[in-house]
């Protein structure tokens, strides 16, 4: 498990090096979060699909900037997870508020 996480972290740093700009990486994660949030307004499944589309944008960016398939896939997985969590935040806040009201 730890080895798998280390390998994902290594590939993530390779992907970031390929993108070459921390700002662009953060921007792409934010885009994934926005897409997940927009999808989440329709349904939970659309939230996941939005995050996946955001992850695929990172995938194509890493590949276009010279990163390998493995680094691009790791970056996609990491961005999809981050985007899904980010896109779920307003939903979680709304859920917490609704629960507190009850």
């Amino acid at each position: 498990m730890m080895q798998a996480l280390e390998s994902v972290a290594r590939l993530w740093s390779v992907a970031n090096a390929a993108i070459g700009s921390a700002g662009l990486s953060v921007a792409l994660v934010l885009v994934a979060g926005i897409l997940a949030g927009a999808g989440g307004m329709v349904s939970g499944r659309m939230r996941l699909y939005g995050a996946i589309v955001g992850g695929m944008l990172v995938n194509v960016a890493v590949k276009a900037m010279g990163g390998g398939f493995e680094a691009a896939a790791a970056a996609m997985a990491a961005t999809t997870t981050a985007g899904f969590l980010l896109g779920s935040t307003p939903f979680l806040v709304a859920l917490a508020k609704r629960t507190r009201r009850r």
Partner: protein
Amino acid sequence: MLPEWVSRLSSASGPAWIAGWSNADIVVAALVVFAVAFSLAAAWTADWLSDVAFLSLVAGALVVAWPAMIVLTMASLALAAGISFLHARLAPDRSARISADAERRAASAVEEFARGAGMSEDEWTRLRAKVEEGRQPG
């Protein structure tokens, strides 16, 4: 047997992440799965077939080079538009029902967003009436 230009295109497109497959092979395979699943999803109105269509594109795009990803995306959009057009011609009632359902889902999502943003019931009703008014022909 496949024509000569097909094998030439396949080898010229470069190797994919899967050993023994070229980018063109993966793009064609993903598009075939997408077209079949999307057509069946339109015919049966089955959500899980839409998932298969979407995931086939994601899986295909993951293992090809970036130019092939762009080709795959553009081709899938063209295919989806073509299938939707055919579906609207062949089964107008079902097509209209799917469109109305999608519109209803989108409207409720926008309404939820508007409520979350602090819009009152009155403001929302007024906005909806304005949008409906804009949709009236003439």
